[in-house]
């Protein structure tokens, strides 16, 4: 589904990604771990098409189609979803209105009519129950005055609503208490299936107890330095990132 080849990317001439290779197949869950500043969030932003990152070399393709020429919204229409590490606030725009706009814009791009109101309401009800979201929450302004946990839960609610092909969760676990973590993981696991792929970016192994990955990659200094199965995450937790750093030096 997702194929990244020798990806190099910079921001303001600072090289951040230095040759990433990654293949994610439909139905798989990949975890990307690594110390601060290793390029995890940059990788997520580059896949989503954020303009301030310049791709210097290499390619990102979704289902065989090169993404380079596509705008962020076109990538979203292709089924890429990014759960933001720091979701922004949009005052005066309710969660419901935002979701309605997002869904209908994506439908428009696919040549479909707006989703009928009753269907939309049904979908909202279904997904808010899945993520144990209070209905009152949906009529609040997007992320305005939300707690850290509410923001993250709202990101996963949006993911559930949009049903993306490829979801990238950028440190979704930060700021979540154990109950919220369980609810969020439950929402993510519901999306897991033959058709979809998920990339989980995280510092800690904790989230991976709930969302069990098929593969774990360790990112260090803009490169994937180690790949393995879920056991790698445990080993990493035990030995710390210094272990990786030392290994790469050797």
């Amino acid at each position: 589904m997702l194929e990244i080849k020798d990806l190099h990317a910079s921001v303001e001439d600072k090289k951040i990604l230095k040759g990433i290779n990654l293949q994610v197949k439909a139905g798989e869950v990949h975890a990307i771990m690594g110390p601060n500043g290793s390029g995890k969030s940059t990788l997520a932003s580059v896949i989503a098409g954020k303009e301030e990152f310049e791709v210097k070399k290499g390619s990102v393709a979704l289902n065989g189609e090169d993404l380079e020429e596509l705008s962020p919204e076109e990538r979203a229409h292709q089924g890429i979803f990014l759960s933001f590490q720091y979701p922004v606030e949009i005052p005066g725009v309710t969660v419901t209105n935002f979701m309605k706009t997002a869904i209908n814009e994506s439908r428009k791009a696919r040549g479909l009519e707006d989703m009928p109101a009753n269907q939309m309401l049904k979908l909202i009800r279904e997904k808010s129950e899945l993520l144990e979201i209070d209905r009152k929450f949906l009529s609040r302004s997007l992320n305005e005055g939300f707690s850290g946990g509410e923001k993250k839960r709202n990101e996963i609610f949006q993911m559930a609503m949009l049903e993306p092909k490829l979801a990238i969760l950028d440190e979704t676990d930060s700021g979540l208490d154990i109950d919220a973590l369980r609810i969020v993981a439950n929402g993510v696991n519901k999306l897991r299936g033959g058709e979809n792929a998920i990339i989980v970016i995280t510092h800690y192994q904790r989230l991976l107890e709930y969302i069990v990955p098929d593969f774990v990659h360790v990112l260090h200094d803009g490169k994937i330095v180690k790949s393995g199965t879920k056991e790698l995450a445990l080993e990493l937790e035990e030995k710390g990132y210094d272990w990786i750093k030392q290994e790469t030096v050797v």
Partner: protein
Amino acid sequence: MAYTEEELKKELETKEYEYGFYTDIESETFPKGLSEDIVIAISQKKQEPEWMTEWRLEAFRVWKQMEEPEWANVNYEKPNFQDISYYSAPNKKPKYNSLDEVDPELLDTFKRLGISLDEQKKLAGVAVDIVMDSVSVATTFKKTLAEKGIIFCSISEAIQEHPELVKKYIGTVVPQKDNFYAALNSAVFSDGSFCYIPKGVRCPMELSTYFRINQAGTGQFERTLVIADEGSYVSYLEGCTAPSRDENQLHAAVVELIALDDAEIKYSTVQNWFPGDKNGKGGVFNFVTKRGLCEKNAKISWTQVETGSAVTWKYPSCVLKGDNSIGEFYSIAVTNNFQQADTGTKMIHLGKNTKSTIISKGISAGQSQNSYRGLVQVNSRAENARNFSQCDSLLMGNRCGAHTFPYIEAKNKSAQIEHEATTSKIGEDQIFYCNQRGIDTEKAIALIVNGFSKEVLNKLPMEFAVEAQKLLEISLEGSVG
């Protein structure tokens, strides 16, 4: 019909402004310039009684002594008042009973504006008194209103038919000598609307007027007078569009509202006059004096959405004369390209327990300048006066400006005055967030701007709110690169 290249080029140039067209209706236009003779001629043209002519002349004499104000935060080339024609009227003047009688070209103009009378009759149940180039051409729903004793007509007609009401109230809220533009308007006003709601009557429909400036080089001087008698209620809508023109067009309207004891007036405006092109050329100069007077327990609420004009100078105000009276001001002012707006309100608390609310939302884009200027004045006898003001500014890009000038004068210790102000900028992060959810940049801006303006949009009557929302989107198209 095949286009020549020249025609096509011309069409494309004017395309930016959706309503930028010019209707070729024969019209009778006075020679340029202003003098006592012109004032008298206008009055005669309208077959006005002598007291009205005198009233105009008084205003003209005062105006001659006055100077154009310069305190506003706007820069523009001052109009040459002797180079303006002060009267222009569509030629085929008689009033019509049905649409069939109306000049088909005029009807076509309305269709292009998307305000066909037919549609409005059916859809909104709105009685429309259309002011096209200063003379009312069509009035609908008059019969329904007449049954309730409501008078809704052009001010010229009111001067003929209801002189006692006009004479009693005109100039009582905005005196002839109030300010430079009000004096000019008082001398030369061509037409406008008049509305009277009798005691205890609740007007069953929204009243509305569409204004248009159509004749090149013709200033438009509208005069509106709304009187809500004791215990009555009326909601009045005013909306306007204008064709694009190279030279600057001057507009100096006066609106007077009178809410007698226990009456309520809701006055809503959507203003979309030609703002000038991308380089700041052309555009309407809008210098408006709007003021309302509240007697005991009365309430006046101004709601405005200002997206047009090259220069806007406008402060819809409330004089809270009666005890327990309430004044409200809800405003959205959008400026783009080289537009300049200096707008706000004045709340004058004279009576006891008077309350006022000011919610102002300024949106600036391009290289425009957007100023809020507001005065809250509490008189020494105004016990327990309360005011709440909130001024929010939203900036788009790095070359525009937002300014807030709140003036507070409290002469009574019991006054409670609150003022809140915020300034924010549409961030790239917000846009990217929307993009990532599949919403393109134009749509994202519309979403963010609508969210920002929601408190004010909610105050507009439903059908107007939809129109206003579209206007906001059109006005800001292409403003974030």
